[in-house]
């Protein structure tokens, strides 16, 4: 926990560290002071790092056998599933790993929203995080196209077609993306190339994300600044490492249940049919984690409008640190914000549900209401709350967040009573 400059013990260590301070970095990572009151919602950063590495490792192995050609891609995946030793395991880990990655990232994001971790001085952590999230969506989408099943092909068609909504140059951009006049072999090839590239960009951004985190340090459930060099923090290793490891292992149970016992429930059966440009599936749906955005896209009556609102729904999050004007970070001390937070969670889940439904009748009406509410939450409710919400009094430090609760006073009185009693006895 000391902020003193780290000096390696060995001579060779000192020699190396003065030239490339990796040992200093490692010492910093070990000793990084972390608020001791972090709850389990804070373990998802570690879980996400684990899944990023898992995806990269399994992905590199799959790439050794996968053939990025529209005539051979589907077959090469069946080859992996059937003939490569434990190929089925690697592929199912990779396919379900992406779902778990997104599940964890959604928890991570909503934790940030609940505890106000995006607020000053952590705006840059929040924004790098959102860029990572955007890159994750690109990676997941390009990856979904690679098996070259029906859903792969038609999802690629639908998503690339979005760009044709751009006035004047839209058609050109779409054809440029396709590398032809429709989704085809060139499209598959470039998606494969991007799918291999983006995880490493994400990896780089994760380093920036953690770097930005280590400047101000972690927020915490109470949302007030911790005093460093105090017993309000613990060193990252071993305390947080052990806690993250424990949470990761518990999360892995959910992951393993999917991988070993229900590896295909999160996918779509149509993706086991080879891509056929002549047959359109009755319902084209993206993977579950993109459904809320798909619902917003289809809720808007015009194509260009839908595209704009869909992208706006993500980019609006980047402005969040300035839209939320409340000085209080944690929802624990914001009675109204807490309610609106849960309404937002329900809205997003509802949008996800509606994204899987055909855009007609009641589904369309609901999707429109939910879309409007989503934007109202960020553009109207949050700025107003910052101005008018009466927040609960903040504690002075994270160690006694409940100092002014009446039962503590009672406890004091009781203790004082005992103290006095003892005194009286000993004196008399």
């Amino acid at each position, binding site marked *: 926990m000391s902020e003193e400059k780290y000096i390696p013990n060995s001579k060779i260590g000192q020699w190396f560290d003065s030239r490339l301070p990796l040992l200093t970095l490692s010492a910093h990572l070990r000793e990084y002071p972390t608020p001791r009151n972090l709850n389990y919602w804070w373990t998802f950063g570690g879980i996400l790092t684990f899944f990023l590495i898992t995806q990269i490792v399994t992905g590199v192995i799959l790439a050794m056998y996968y053939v990025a050609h529209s005539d051979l891609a589907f077959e090469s995946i069946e080859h992996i599933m059937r003939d490569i030793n434990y190929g089925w395991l690697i592929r199912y880990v990779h396919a379900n790993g992406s779902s778990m990655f997104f599940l964890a990232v959604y928890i991570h994001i909503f934790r940030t929203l609940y505890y106000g971790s995006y607020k000053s001085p952590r705006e840059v952590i929040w924004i790098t995080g959102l860029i990572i999230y955007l890159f994750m969506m690109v990676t997941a989408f390009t990856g979904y196209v690679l098996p070259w099943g029906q859903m792969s092909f038609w999802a690629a068609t639908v998503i690339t077609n979005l760009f044709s909504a751009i006035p004047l140059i839209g058609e050109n951009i779409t054809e440029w993306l396709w590398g032809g006049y429709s989704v085809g072999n060139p499209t598959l090839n470039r998606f494969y190339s991007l799918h291999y590239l983006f995880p490493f960009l994400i990896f780089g951004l994760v380093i920036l994300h953690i770097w930005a985190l280590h400047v101000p340090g972690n927020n915490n459930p109470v949302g007030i600044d911790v005093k460093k060099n105090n017993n309000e923090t613990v060193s990252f290793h071993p305390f947080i490492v052990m806690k993250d490891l424990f949470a990761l292992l518990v999360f892995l149970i959910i992951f393993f249940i999917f991988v070993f016992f229900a590896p295909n429930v999160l996918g779509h*059966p149509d993706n086991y049919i080879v891509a056929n440009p002549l047959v359109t599936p009755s319902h084209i749906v993206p993977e579950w984690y993109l459904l809320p955005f798909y619902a917003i896209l289809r809720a808007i009556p015009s194509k260009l409008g839908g595209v704009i609102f869909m992208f706006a729904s993500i980019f609006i999050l980047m402005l969040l640190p300035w839209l939320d004007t409340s000085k209080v970070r944690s929802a624990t001390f914001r009675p109204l914000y807490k309610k609106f937070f849960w309404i937002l969670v329900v809205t997003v889940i509802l949008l996800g549900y509606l994204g899987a439904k055909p855009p007609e009748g009641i589904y369309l009406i609901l999707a429109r209401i939910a879309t409007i509410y989503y934007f109202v939450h960020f553009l109207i409710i949050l700025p107003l709350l910052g101005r008018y919400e009466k927040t609960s009094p903040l504690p002075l430090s994270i160690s006694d967040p409940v100092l002014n609760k009446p039962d503590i006073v009672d406890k004091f009185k009781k203790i004082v009573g005992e103290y006095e009693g003892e005194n009286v006895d000993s004196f008399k």
Partner: protein
Amino acid sequence: MLIRLNSFLINIIFFIFISVISNPAYSEEKNVDLLKINWSFKGLLGTFDRSSLQRGYQVYQEVCSACHSIQYLSYRNLSEKGGPEFSEEEAKAIAAQFEVLDGPNSEGEMFTRSGRLSDKFVKPFPNVEAATAANGGAYPPDMSVLAKARKGGADYIYSLLLGYEDAPAGYELDDGVYYNKYMTGQKIKMLKPLSDGAVEYSDGTQATEAQMAKDVATFLTWAAEPHLEVRHKTGVRAILYLIVLIILVYFSMKKVWSRVDSKDDLEQQEDTFDKVEKWTTQYEGDDPKSFK
């Protein structure tokens, strides 16, 4: 006025809630509930019924394979662990029944030879177009991953095979189109493939329609997922291992954290003691000596 607005809103919310709950499936598709069977391969430790797989292969070979290919399965798979587990001789004999196009040889000629274990299942038609043309314009889908490519999997295949019925009165059917209540749109171009006694099982099992449907659905599930058994086995082991590890890590974590937690308790006690002392001092008056 306000109360009326409120009840109006509540009505709307109720209506929305009910319609969301009562519409779990896509509205335009008529979903007929599939026939459900207690498959042996379902569940955490589910394994295939070997004899059912072997019978299922027979049904595929004698009935389905006239039109449907299984292009990703090899004859060697038939003798592999976790599958029908024919003996290697049996699998070789099965492979040898088929003529395989090979080549070119050193003269540059293509030639046919009898099948080997390493060969893929021979297709009934050379390509999709030929298969489509020979089947009245409807391509008989390749069955390699059919059980994974249909919602409901084995249940769907089983139901479809038993779902042939006479079309309801007034239902228009073109030539070569049949009524099947489990098919999307209830129209199917496949002639009812199974009827009692269509194959003769060598193990004495009664070849009823339902029995054959069950066997071939089992076989196709295995064809789509040949490593299902080892996947289940590995999964159970991995999760058991994980549980043991979680218990160990949990207690290690508790031990590590006890360092700060106990320090914390002591400090908090001291802290409380300080406060209490302060409190008492105030209560007693500034001068502790004034207290007897």
